[in-house]
């Protein structure tokens, strides 16, 4: 990817000029070609029209047959009813400029929904008005009307007919139909009177002419080609178009037949030709139609009755359910439990129970999933807790017993020391004892006249064998084997022993300061 700023861009017209020249040459060439093969092209055009006419007739005939079959299936094909409906379609086609190719399927659709010829005719008229007013296709409008008739009123909302969602939801189809009839009154007729409408009507006339010609061609070709059916004939025409020679031979026959058809005076004398609207009333139904309407009305009444019964039953069931809910102890208990102080998992369980009671599938699924998750989380927590090892005893390696033993030994030593000192003191005569003053256990100590600044005992003084009198060994070193342990605990233990010694009078009070 690169970003460019193009400067001084100009249109390079050379390529365009070349293309223009090439097209001009091509046009000239095509015209010459057309001039040379004019006869062939004309023949092909006639043949093409012939094929299209045959196809149009076949499709029209198929649609008419399908409509007739629907009427038969709905038990509405009384007498000439099929002809009446087809006649109605033909009239509508000419009036509105909408092709019967669209009208017939629409009518067919409405007939299947309503099961009533008159109602279908009404709705088809309405559909034409709506289609003309909204610009939607007749197929789309008739489908929406069919759905609305069957209870799906929302389908009409999508057509943009100017009805609110609330109106569509709350109104019956009859009310909606009435409203739409007012909203779109005369739209189809007005549209047909416009220039575009006139063109459409001309197109309809042209299409009908094509179908009529097609019918004539089919009849003629069937005779000429010994075909058994229209499909067979179409296949033969297709085959004919593959071979030019065969094509031209067949075309000769077609032209002869077509010429005789285009003699317009034939229309007047041909008993099967189009004769106008006939004596079919546009305002009053025929006896057959009336008979069919009566049957449809009866069926509709039965359907309405069944629907009403079902609605009543549903309403009663609903009331019963509501009444039951008031005294449903289970639900009350769940509701009460939910108001208490409960854990999240308990709350989910209760909600699930509530949903089961209410038979609310979506809520049941929701809370089942939540409960599953909660249980999985609990299991995970339990597993995590099980994996946690208790804290090790930080004092387990401490040699407390060793310290205690050592302290006991120390205590025993001091006790012995006190005994030795006392014995030594007792061995002195009275004067010697008096000379010692307050320092009874220590032999040989001189009593200073002024209190010494350093009260510690001189290293040369003590109990032992090498002094004057009985002396203790000078420079006593006491090793305390405490092992590894808390220094504070050890110090406190030593302090405790020394304090006890002071209290017993076997050690001077200020020895601690000297340490």
């Amino acid at each position, binding site marked *: *990817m*690169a*970003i*460019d*700023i*193009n*400067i*001084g*861009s*100009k*249109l*390079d*017209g*050379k*390529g*365009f*000029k070349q293309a223009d020249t090439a097209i001009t040459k091509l046009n000239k060439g095509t015209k010459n070609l057309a001039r040379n093969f004019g006869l062939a092209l004309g023949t092909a055009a006639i043949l093409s029209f012939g094929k299209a006419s045959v196809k149009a007739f076949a499709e029209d005939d198929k649609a008419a047959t399908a409509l007739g079959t629907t009427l038969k299936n709905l038990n509405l094909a009384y007498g000439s009813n099929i002809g009446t409906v087809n006649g109605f379609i033909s009239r509508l086609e000419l009036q509105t400029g909408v092709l019967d190719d669209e009208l017939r399927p629409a009518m067919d659709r409405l007939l299947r929904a309503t099961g009533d010829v008159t109602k279908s005719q009404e709705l088809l008229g309405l559909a034409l008005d709506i289609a003309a007013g909204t610009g939607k296709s007749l197929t789309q409008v008739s489908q929406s009307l069919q759905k609305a008739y069957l209870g799906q009123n929302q389908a009409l909302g999508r057509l943009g007919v100017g009805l609110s969602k609330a109106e569509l939801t709350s109104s019956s189809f009859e009310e909606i139909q009435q409203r739409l009839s007012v909203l779109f009154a005369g739209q189809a007729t007005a549209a047909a009177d416009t220039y575009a409408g006139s063109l459409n009507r001309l197109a309809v006339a042209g299409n009908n002419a094509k179908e009529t010609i097609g019918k004539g061609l089919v009849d003629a070709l069937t005779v000429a080609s010994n075909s058994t059916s229209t499909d067979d004939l179409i296949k033969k025409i297709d085959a004919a178009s593959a071979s030019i020679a065969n094509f031209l031979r067949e075309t000769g026959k077609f032209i002869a037949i077509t010429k005789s058809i285009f003699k317009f005076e034939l229309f007047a004398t041909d008993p099967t030709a189009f004769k106008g609207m006939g004596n079919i009333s546009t305002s009053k139904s025929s006896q057959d139609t009336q008979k069919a309407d009566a049957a449809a009305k009866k069926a509709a009444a039965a359907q309405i009755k069944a629907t009403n019964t079902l609605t009543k039953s549903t309403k009663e069931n609903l009331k019963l359910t509501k009444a039951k809910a008031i005294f449903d102890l289970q639900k009350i208990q769940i509701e009460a439990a939910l108001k208490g102080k409960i854990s999240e998992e308990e709350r989910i369980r209760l909600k699930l129970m509530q949903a089961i009671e209410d038979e609310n599938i979506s809520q049941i699924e929701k809370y089942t999933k939540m409960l599953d998750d909660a249980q999985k989380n609990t299991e995970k927590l339990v597993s995590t807790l099980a994996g946690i090892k208790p804290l090790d005893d930080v004092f387990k390696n401490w040699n407390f017993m060793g310290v205690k033993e050592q302290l006991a030994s120390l205590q025993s030593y001091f006790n012995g020391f006190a005994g030795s000192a006392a014995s030594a003191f007792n061995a002195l005569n009275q004067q010697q004892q008096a000379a010692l003053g307050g320092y009874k256990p220590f032999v040989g100590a001189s009593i200073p006249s002024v209190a010494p600044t350093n009260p510690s005992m001189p290293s040369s003084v003590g109990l032992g064998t090498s002094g004057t009198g009985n002396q203790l060994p000078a420079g006593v070193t006491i090793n305390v084997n405490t092992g590894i342990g808390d220094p504070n605990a050890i110090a406190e233990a030593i302090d405790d022993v020394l304090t006890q010694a002071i209290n017993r009078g076997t050690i001077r009070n200020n020895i601690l300061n000297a340490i």
Partner: protein
Amino acid sequence: MRVKVEGVKQTRKAIRQFAPDLNKELNQELRIALAPIAKKAKGFVPSDSPMSGWAGRSFSEAKFPMFNARTIRSGIGFTTKQGRTTRSGFISNATIYNKSVAGAIYETAGRANNGEGQPWVGPKAGGASKKVSRSVNPNAGTKFIENLGPLTSSLKGRGRLILKAWAQDQGKAYGAAIKAIDKAERKFYDRSKTTTFSKAA
């Protein structure tokens, strides 16, 4: 003999072949007009990546092109040669370009979605569209664009490097370039009235 050359491409070709001195003069004038824009655009390239995560690394780990100021700067330049004819039939006489991928990203990021990045769908979303953000961070796109700084609007589009430089030039370079091209063409045709052309060696 009066010379009539059809087409922009052919005119430049004719100038190049039959009046090389004019061609040289034209290229020189175009260079004088366009070089300051390219130089200025190179100056807009930050020396360091606007985000540490976009900075180049010693090892390659992603397909997304990493920011490298040197690569981006070397990718910015201009050419006085004619471009190719576009599908709509236009041909350019000179071009300022920003051809490195990282440079193009720095230039244009944030233009399409008004500075908000591509719509976020996350890494687990299906499809293969490249028009959506699949980052784990929903705000990655927006933050990326924010860090790059604002886009500058010019008549050729919004951008941060060459388009910003183009906007700041306010059409001076464009005027000079067009004038140079017109002058060369005019001189060529004027000369054709008085001189007999022969193809340059």
